[in-house]
Structure formats: structure tokens, C-alpha cells
């Protein structure tokens, strides 16, 4: 019954290693990397995985999602496959994806819309360099570059319009140079020099923003410097007494988790982008992790934050777990989206790696029943580490990603399951939906917890549908961004967006937003009905987080990105009109700025503005997000 996936056995091995590490003498435990900050210090941690290189383009796509070696493609036989070796899906054939893809979007494998293969460096404007700044920087010994590839790579996040433009070889305003501080004091120097020479700084972490937050404001006339935090990636200490770790903010999610695992710990913070997104980015956008039910969202996880601002360093004086010292200054930092300064170091809560993990899934006859079940689970406060409810369209999507089955027996079993659910139980395959579950903890409690949740599900007509379906559901979230690149090869564009909403409005919001998308597409001349689907991804006491996927075939449209943006805009209006929030965890960036006043009131916005004015009167952190 236990999860027998390779990742879990690797974790067991790690736990053993961690056990060895724990036997070290007491005074050593708190000094994993507490050495003098020097850029090329040999790493004390025994991790074999390479950290993020300065030239990210060497391992990652310059105009798409993720690693260069991993991508979906339709092979010569017209079957979809996923290349590379990094993922469970890597190297596998996905036989039903083609039919789903063609059926859903009216797309055709004959109609390709390939991307420009390489960066057209001549299209990159020459850098607008601030020479005195560069000289001072050189004197301070901070690594820097104005190589066009480096600059292009840091000029965008992963919004549709950003990637679409890159694929077409269009390059807009890019940073004029990139700097790589290697520690807190480097950042202090950079910020000081930026103030001195009036240079615009844009902090850059993992580059996974989907709110146009990394876009260079075109009205900016100063030299723009992208401050890449990727080299500040060490765990500085782990405190097992208080279960905290002090970490440099440039570390990316998967490295942080892996390194902590080596010590037998984890943060449990797993946003869908955790392979690439950074700790500093999480803090700056108020990120949320899939397992927040156990570990909490980023604001629950941080104990201490150090941020360098033009006014100096902001931090608290102790590591107390809670303080009543006026409004929590962390909340000026959390969600500041790079407008106030650079987060350099964070003290985070850590937890021992859970003993046992188990996936699960439940099929419901329809989405309403599913939502009712999630609401009940939230009411009883017994949500597993993760519980997500996919609507019917997404369930079918997930199905299309089923890899080729190895034996006739498995496919026979699948057929039997399907027969049982649709014929025997009478679920309509066009209405049924699936909740995916992830339980964590010690074995006994997990099993008990599992029973409790399945019992609730049964009250709402839910049928347990196996671990496999559950696990595939979670896999979908990691590969979805790769899938978008595949779609874009065949005239299909799309994106996701999210909101949070009170429980009683979840159903209405989902229905109305989905329908609004379909309508808007039709009105704007989209030839085929779009994919408009949603899932409930997080449960809270008072509401839920809802995630929408929206994609369509853009053949026949002269300006598909504009159409896309109009529809997304309308969808956001619909969300707000239905009592949803402007964002649950993606942030505001520049994409959703226009609604900020409406969202937080004029006074609220004024408060934020006055903080910005005090902290950064010269607008050094000039990415113009949020306000």
C-alpha cells in the first residue's frame, strides 16, 4: 500500500544519511555554511546536484519552460512523448494525448507554428550602461555581465505574451546588465552603488513570474540592472532545537528541499514552480505551496527576513515565533514584489521528513458534489497535506496524459474500473470529476486520516479511485507548463490564473468564469471552443483557492495574444464580480495593477505607496510592480 515510487525510496536513503549527519558533535550542527562570504567558497554541503549556473540558458530554454532537455513533442508516428530523463514521464509515450489535443482544440498536427530556434542577438538593443556604476561595482568585486543572452534571459517571466514574443524572435526592452551577488553584503554594496549612481534595480530569482513582474518598464530611461540572486543559494545554518533553518534567499525550491532532506528535514513548501522558483521570490510574492495544509503558506513559514533596501537593511531583532510590535514588518516585505528591496536571507521553519506519504483519489459524480465534499473536509479541519478537485475537462486532460500501459492486464483493469464507475455506479463520464489527495505523516495516522477523508467523500457520492490517479494529478501540475510549449508549436496558446473565494461562491465563480471565457472567445472570433477548465487547489476555513486553465486554437486570428489578453482581462473582471480575489499567490505584478485600488481601497493603496516613498524615494527598485 505504501507509495513505492522511486522518489520515496530515495527519501528513505536520505533519511539514513541524515541520521549519520545527526550523530555529529553538537556544536557543528548549526554551521552548515556559516563561513566568510566569498563568491567562490567551496560548498560544504555534500549535494551532488549542480546549483543554478550563471548562464542559465545552458541548461534551460530561452523561450519556453524549464530544462532544455525536457519537452513534449509529437514523434513521427504522431504519438506524443516527453523527452529527457528528469521526470517520471520522461521517455514515455502518451498515446491518448494526440486525440485529446486535436479533439479539444480542433488543432491539427499538420499545422505547425514553430518557434524561432535561437536568440536573434542583433535584435537586442545595445546596453545603456552606467559606466561609473560599473567601475565601482568592479572595484567591489561583484560578478556582472552585459552579454545579450544573459540580458534577454532575465527580461521576462512566463506570461503568455512574454513567451509568445520570444518564440517569434521579438525582443523588447531588456536589462542593460546582470549582476550576481554572492551574499548579503554584496547586495548591500550593489544597492548602495545603485543609489549613488541612480541605476534601476530589478531583483531576479527563479524567473517564473506570471504577472509581468520581470518586464522592464518601457518608460524607464535609466540603466536597468537585473539583480540575479541565484548565487546566494546556501543554507547558512540549521537549528534543530527550534526547527529552523537560515537560508540565502536565492536558493531555488528543489535545491532547498534536497539539501534539507540530506539533513532529514524539509520545509514542506512546494509551490508548483518549486523546481525553478526561489525562496526570495516566494517571499516577494506571498507564495503558496501545495502542502500548505500541514506546513502553511510562505507567510506562516518565515520566522525572520532580512531585506536590503535603499534606506538600509530591514530585519527583526530576534527569532521569536510571534511578536506584538505594531503591524508586522514582515508583511511590508511579503508580497512587495521587488519594489522595496532585495530579500537576502530568510529564517524558515523546518520539519522532519515525514515517515510516510500516500497519494489517493476520489471520483465524484459531478463537480458540485466534489466541492461540497471539500467544503466538509475543510469544516472538519481534516484536510490532507494536499487536496485538489479537478473539474471534468481537467479530469479528461489528466487522462490524456496517461502513459502507454505496459501490460494487457493493466489496460484490462483500467477498462474494468471505467466500466464500474460509469456503468455500474452510473457516473456520467461528461460530468464526473476527481479529487486528488496527498497524505503525509506517520503511518498509523496517515491511514486513519485517509479513512476519515474517504468516509466524508462517500457521503458526497465519492468513490475511491486509487493512488495512481492521484499521483498523475500532481504530475500534471509539474508538466503543464511544458505542455503549453507543445501547444504553442501547434497554434494553441493558453495560460493559467488563480483566485481565492469564499466557500459559498466557489461553484458560482467557477461556472461563471468558465462560461465567460467561452463567450469572450466566441465574441472575439476564436474559431474553436476554448479549453476552459478549473480546479480547486487549496482549502481554507473560510474559502478555497481556484485555479483556471484556459487555452485556445488561434488559427485565423491576426493578433492572438491580444485576444488572449482581452479574454483573460474579462475573466479577471468576472472573478472580481463574483467575489474572488485579485490573486491568491501569483501576485499582482504589472499585469493586474489596474485592479489594485479596487482590491485594497484607495487608502490601502496610499499606505503602500507611502511605504514605497519612504523606503525607496529614488525608485531604485523601479520594476513598477504592484503600485
Amino acid at each position: 500500500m505504501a507509495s513505492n515510487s522511486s522518489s520515496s525510496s530515495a527519501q528513505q536513503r536520505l533519511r539514513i544519511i541524515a541520521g549519520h549527519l545527526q550523530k555529529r558533535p553538537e556544536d557543528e550542527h548549526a554551521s552548515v555554511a556559516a563561513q566568510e562570504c566569498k563568491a567562490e567558497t567551496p560548498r560544504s554541503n555534500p549535494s551532488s546536484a549542480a546549483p543554478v549556473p550563471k548562464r542559465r540558458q545552458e541548461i534551460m530554454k530561452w523561450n519556453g519552460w524549464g530544462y532544455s532537455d525536457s519537452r513534449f513533442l509529437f514523434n513521427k508516428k504522431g504519438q506524443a512523448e516527453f523527452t529527457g530523463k528528469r521526470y517520471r514521464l520522461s521517455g514515455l509515450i502518451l498515446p491518448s494525448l494526440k486525440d485529446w489535443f486535436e479533439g479539444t482544440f480542433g488543432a491539427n498536427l499538420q499545422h505547425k507554428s514553430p518557434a524561432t530556434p535561437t536568440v536573434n542577438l542583433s535584435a537586442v538593443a545595445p546596453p545603456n550602461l552606467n559606466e561609473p556604476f560599473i567601475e565601482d561595482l568592479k572595484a567591489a568585486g561583484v560578478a556582472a555581465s552585459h552579454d545579450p543572452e544573459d540580458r534577454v534571459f532575465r527580461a521576462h517571466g512566463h506570461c503568455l505574451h512574454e513567451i509568445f514574443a520570444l518564440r517569434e524572435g521579438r525582443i523588447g526592452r531588456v536589462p542593460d546588465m546582470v549582476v550576481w551577488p554572492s551574499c548579503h553584503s554584496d547586495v548591500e554594496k550593489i544597492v548602495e552603488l545603485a543609489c549613488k549612481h541612480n541605476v534601476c534595480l530589478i531583483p531576479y530569482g527563479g524567473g517564473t513570474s506570471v504577472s509581468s513582474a520581470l518586464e522592464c518598464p518601457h518608460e524607464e530611461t535609466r540603466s536597468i540592472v537585473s539583480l540575479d540572486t541565484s548565487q546566494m543559494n546556501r543554507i547558512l545554518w540549521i537549528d534543530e532545537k527550534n526547527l529552523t533553518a537560515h537560508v540565502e534567499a536565492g536558493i531555488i525550491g528543489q535545491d532547498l528541499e534536497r539539501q534539507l532532506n540530506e539533513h532529514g528535514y524539509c520545509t514542506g513548501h512546494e509551490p508548483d514552480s518549486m523546481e525553478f522558483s526561489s525562496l526570495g521570490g516566494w517571499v516577494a510574492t506571498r507564495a503558496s505551496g501545495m502542502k500548505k495544509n500541514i506546513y502553511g503558506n510562505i507567510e506562516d513559514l518565515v520566522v525572520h527576513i532580512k531585506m536590503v533596501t535603499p534606506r538600509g537593511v530591514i530585519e527583526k531583532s530576534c527569532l521569536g515565533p510571534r511578536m506584538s510590535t505594531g503591524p508586522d514588518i514582515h508583511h511590508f516585505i511579503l508580497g512587495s514584489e521587488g519594489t522595496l528591496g532585495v530579500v537576502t536571507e530568510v529564517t524558515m521553519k523546518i520539519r522532519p521528513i515525514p515517515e510516510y506519504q500516500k497519494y489517493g483519489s476520489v471520483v465524484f459524480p459531478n463537480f458540485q458534489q466534489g466541492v461540497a465534499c471539500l467544503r466538509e473536509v475543510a469544516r472538519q479541519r481534516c484536510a490532507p497535506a494536499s487536496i485538489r478537485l479537478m473539474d471534468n475537462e481537467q479530469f479528461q486532460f489528466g487522462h490524456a496524459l496517461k502513459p502507454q500501459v505496459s501490460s494487457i492486464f493493466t489496460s484490462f483493469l483500467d477498462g474494468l474500473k471505467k466500466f464500474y464507475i460509469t456503468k455500474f455506479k452510473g457516473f456520467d463520464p461528461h460530468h464526473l470529476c476527481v479529487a486528488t489527495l496527498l497524505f503525509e505523516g506517520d503511518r498509523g495516522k496517515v491511514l486513519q486520516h485517509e479513512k476519515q477523508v474517504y468516509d466524508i467523500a462517500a457521503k458526497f457520492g465519492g468513490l475511491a479511485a486509487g493512488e495512481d490517479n492521484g499521483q498523475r494529478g500532481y504530475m500534471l501540475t509539474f508538466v503543464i507548463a511544458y505542455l503549453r510549449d507543445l501547444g504553442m508549436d501547434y497554434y494553441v496558446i493558453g495560460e493559467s490564473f488563480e483566485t481565492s473565494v469564499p466557500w459559498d461562491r466557489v461553484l458560482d465563480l467557477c461556472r461563471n468564469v468558465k462560461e465567460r471565457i467561452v463567450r469572450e472567445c466566441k465574441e472575439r472570433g476564436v474559431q474553436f471552443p476554448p479549453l476552459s477548465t478549473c480546479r480547486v487547489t487549496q482549502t481554507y476555513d473560510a474559502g478555497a483557492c481556484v485555479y483556471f486553465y484556459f487555452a485556445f486554437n488561434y488559427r485565423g486570428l491576426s493578433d492572438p495574444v491580444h485576444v488572449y489578453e482581452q479574454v483573460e482581462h474579462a475573466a479577471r473582471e468576472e472573478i472580481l464580480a463574483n467575489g474572488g480575489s485579485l490573486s491568491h499567490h501569483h501576485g499582482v505584478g504589472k499585469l493586474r495593477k489596474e485592479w489594485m485600488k479596487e482590491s485594497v481601497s484607495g487608502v490601502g493603496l496610499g499606505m503602500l505607496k507611502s511605504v514605497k516613498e519612504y523606503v525607496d524615494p529614488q525608485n531604485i527598485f523601479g520594476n513598477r510592480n504592484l503600485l
Partner: protein
Amino acid sequence: MASRALYSPRHPVLKKRDDFEDVLEERRRSSDLRYALRCYTPTLYKGLVPCKVSMLKSIVLQSDHLQCVIKQVSSESGDSTECVAEEASLILDEMAHRMQLSTVRFFVFTLSKAFKRLFRSVCVNEEGIQRLQQAVQEHPVVLLPSHRSYMDFLMMSYLLYMFDLPLPVIAAGMDFMSMKFIGEMLRMSGAFFIRRSFGGDKLYWAVFSEYVKTMLRKGYAPIEFFLEGTRSRTCKSLTPKTGLLNIVMEPFFKGELFDVSLVPVSISYERVLEESLYARELLGVPKPKESTSGLLKARRVLSEDYGSMHVYFGHPVSVRSLAEGKIKRSQYNLLPRYIPQKPSVDTHEFLNDAAFRLVRIQEENMVLKPWVLIATLLLQNPDGMDLSSLTEQTDWLRHLALAFGAFLDWPDHEACSEVISCSLALHRRLLSVSAGHVQLSVTDAPQVETTPEEAVFQRAVVVLSCASYRNQILHVFLRPALLAVAMQSANSSRKDDIYNCFNFLRNMFSNEFILCPGDSVQDFEEACYLLMKRGVLQVLEHEIVMSASGQSTLAFLCSVLEPFLQGYQVVCRYLCEETNENLTEKEFIPAVRSFALKLILAGRLKCCEALSSDLQKNALAALLRLKAVRKVKVGDQVTLKVNKIAVNSLEDTMGKSDVISK
């Protein structure tokens, strides 16, 4: 799309309308019984939540909204919640429909028989039906028919059954319920009953609104109600009520429904069944209480010819498109949706505006028969007309009406004189025709002796009956007529002066006619445009000048409004001359009536329409709105305090035409 239909270009002439088809034709050829029993498979709403009538009741009673109000009422009144809940349940029992197909089939059978006897044809625009079929599948539908006769909702259900559309549930006034058997029959064919007034009754309102909303949200059935609130006794559209409109829109405002389609339906009769009944009612002969025996006595009605009937299903209007940019739905974000909330000022304004526009659509789609033109002319010529000149003028008026966008059903290939003689024959009860001279007259020969008062009333019955036909076309002439009168009374050709007069008149008459609030400038421009196009006026930058050939048209248009101007002046005169300090609201109508009667008997007033209680009520409402009269509550009486100076000045501004000779 739908919103564009609502805010259509202001030049109705360009309006394209659907063709009609007679639905009785088929009925005359095949068996009514088989028809009534045929397989009925309506098109259904895609989001339909199947739900039985009995379930409906418990859903409403268990709803968060009603539970919340029950608790509120209980804590305010001190009664136990069980007690209040019981009361709610009783209210719902009294209200709820119990639609069942067998009753509907019975109605279909009997109505087929009845309609065939009453009407020569019942014409429906089939394209409208097709649009409705489409709309019904997409979103919950609200049917908004005009209301001129009891026949209206019977006919609606009949037609929907005929075209395999879902049968509507109909908001009906409580007065029907007192008709023992019929009331129950109507209930079983989908009518639900609401009290005429329940202003302050929170619980009643909650039960009622939740009942309607539940049916809408579940897509249970199309909701049908009358925007005008009651049957129009004058065949003029009535100022719309917004209460029910708010109820059916709220599920959209609160995000419970993606959209709601409003379908205005215009039902017009060549001869209204209740014709003289209405006239008597307006003259103060009280309306007979609805009773089954009364209905049976009305069987005489069945033996007469009521000509043809037209039902026009308008374009569905999407509430979503209507509300776009006008209603901020996020205003509902901060309060749990089950807690009742009074509509905000903005919402109220929106509802009012939407209601007016919907009634305007009803008006514009109302089919007009040739008789309407004839009636207009006969009323302007109380001494009668020669048939030849009647023919000539009717033809002239027909072209004028068409130029103004009237939806006229004029037989294509018949001579004008032929058409006219047909119309006269159908309406012979209101006329006398002798030696080529046509005159409105009392045809029910006066038995024995009548007092002068009785004679006036008998004549008034004919005039008001006839006026009810003229009234049908008023909306076509209204704006140009207001302009014509404004030009006459402005005594100036300056555009500003004329506009001011126009605006004053428009304001004065906005209880009398459907004039969308805030549309003053558009109305003025529309009037100018129409008259300019007709060659009556030249509209320059700062001036409006009458063309040489325009005199007759302007004179005609002025006399269209004449009865109303006179009627309002009579009301003003009464308030200035005759009232003492303690005029109560109740006494107002009879007192004005006898004042007007006195003027008529004295030969100082020619116009019988001043006797109409509808006109008197509207005039009072206008004076109250303009604050020339105030209502003051004294004890349990409401008395009217008249500001004589203000009333006098309004009367003067209205035209000083001194119609009422001293």
C-alpha cells in the same frame, strides 16, 4: 447582441420586424382533442436541475435566505421561529402554483375552442419563437408580456405549449384566487398568486422573492410577469414596476446565474374583450369582483367577433449585457448573499431605466390595426366625418404613422375604403354610420329617459372605449406631438426655448406616457429628426422653423395631445378653485370627476376624457412629483395640501389655451 437590440438606434423607422403566421389556421383543420393530448416535449434549459413542484416548496422553506428572515422576524416580533416558519409555510401554500400537465391539456382543449370562436386569427412571429427556443436552452428566461386583457397569460401559455416551449409560471394578482374553481385551475396551469400590496411585510417579501428566485436558479420554468403590474385599462402602457424585475435580476447580480434572458412580448388585440368594461371602470363604475359566475355571464362575449390578435416575441435581452458598466456586481461581495439587501441607489436607477426600456420595446412591437388610425381621427372630429374624407385622412395618417415607425398591420392588396369599411363593421358598437357620415355614438339605444348626467356618461363610455384604440398608437406620435405643442406654446423659433417647453411637457406627462427618465435630449432629437424627415420642420443650428407644408401635420399632432392637456388643466383648475383645506386622497377622484362633469354639463368643457380616472390619477401623480401638491398624513387619512400658486403656474405653462371657457 441583445443589449444592442435594447439600445437600438433611435430611428425606429429603420426597424426590421418579423413576419407573422396565423396559428389558428392549423387548429381549424385538425382535432383539438388530439392536439390537447399530443406528446409535449419542450426544449429544456441546459442547466436545468430537475425538481418536482413539491420539492420546490421545501427548497424555498429551507433556503438560507428565508431562514435568515424567519429568525429576524422572530426576534423582532417575539414569536417563536417555529411559529414564523409556519406562517411562511402558509404564505407559500397560498402563493405557490401546482402546475400539472393534465390541467394544461384541459386548458389547451377549451382555449382552442374559445380562441377559434373569438378570433379570426391569432398571429405569432415564428422567428421570435425560434429565438425563444434558443434562449430557453442557454439561460433562464423571463417572459414579459404586455397586459391588456385577461386573455394575455392564457394565450401565452397556450402558445408556448403549441411550440413545445417550457410552460411558464406566472405571477398573478391575488384577485384571481377568489374565483374559486378558476383560481385553482389557473394554479394548476402554472399561475402563482401574489398579494397586491405587502409593502412592509418582510416575511411575505422573503417568501415571494425566494420562491421566484429558486425557480429561476433551478431553471424550473420560465418566469412570466407583467412589468406594468396590472392590466392597462386605457391600452396605454403603464409606468413599469421594478420589484419583480429586481427579484429576477438579483440572481445575476449576485453571481448565482451567468445570465438571465428577458423576453418582452407584445400582445395586441384588434378588439379588446374588456373594451367597454374598462371604460366604465375609468368612469367610476366599480369593477365587478372577479368571480366564476361573473365569468359565466360573460359568455355573451363568446358570441362576438374580436377580429385578429397579434403576439410578437421580441429579441431576448440579456441582463448581463444590460447591466454591463452599470451595475458593479462586486458590491455584493461583502455580505453573505442570503442576507436580504435593499437595492442600492445605482441599482434602483438601473432597474427603473431597464424597465422603461423594456416597456418601450413592448410598445414598439405592438401591432396596430387600421381601426387605430380611424379611432384617432374620429376622436378629433366629435361631430363625425364623411366617409370619403375619413378615407382620405386615414390614408394620410397611415403614411405619417409608417414614416414614424409604426408597426401597422395594413392589408396589402386592399383598397383603403375596403379596409376602412371592414374596420367600421368590426367596431360597429361604437359608431353610427348613416348616409356616408361616420360618427362615434352610443349604439345601445337609450332606453326610457336618461338624465343629462347619464347621457354624458354614456357618451363618455364610447369616447373612452374609442380612446383606448387611439392610445395604442400614441407612443408613435408622442415625441413629435410634444414637439408640436412645444412649438405652439413657446411662441419662439429659438431651439432652446422650444426645447425648454418640450422638456416641461415631457416632465409633466411622464406619468401619463412611457418616457424613459433621462432621455429628454434624445427624445427631442428624435422628434426633430422625424418631423424634419417628413418635411414638416427645418431644424437649423439655433432655430426650428415650420415648413410651409407642415401646418396640417403639426395641427394633427397638437390635437393628439389636446385631450391630455385639457384633462390636466381641469385637474389643476379643480385644485385651484374648488378645494378646501381637507381634501383627502380618497375623495380626489370622485371630486374631480364631478367637477369635470359640471363643466361638461355647463358646456364649458367638450372633452369627455377629462372624466377618466386614469388621467386624473396620472395628473395628481405628476403634481405630487413636481411638488405642487403634498400628501400629509392626518390620523389615518391622507390629505392633499395644494400649493395653489405652483399649480396655477403649471397650468399656465401647459398652454394657456383656455380650453375651458369661462
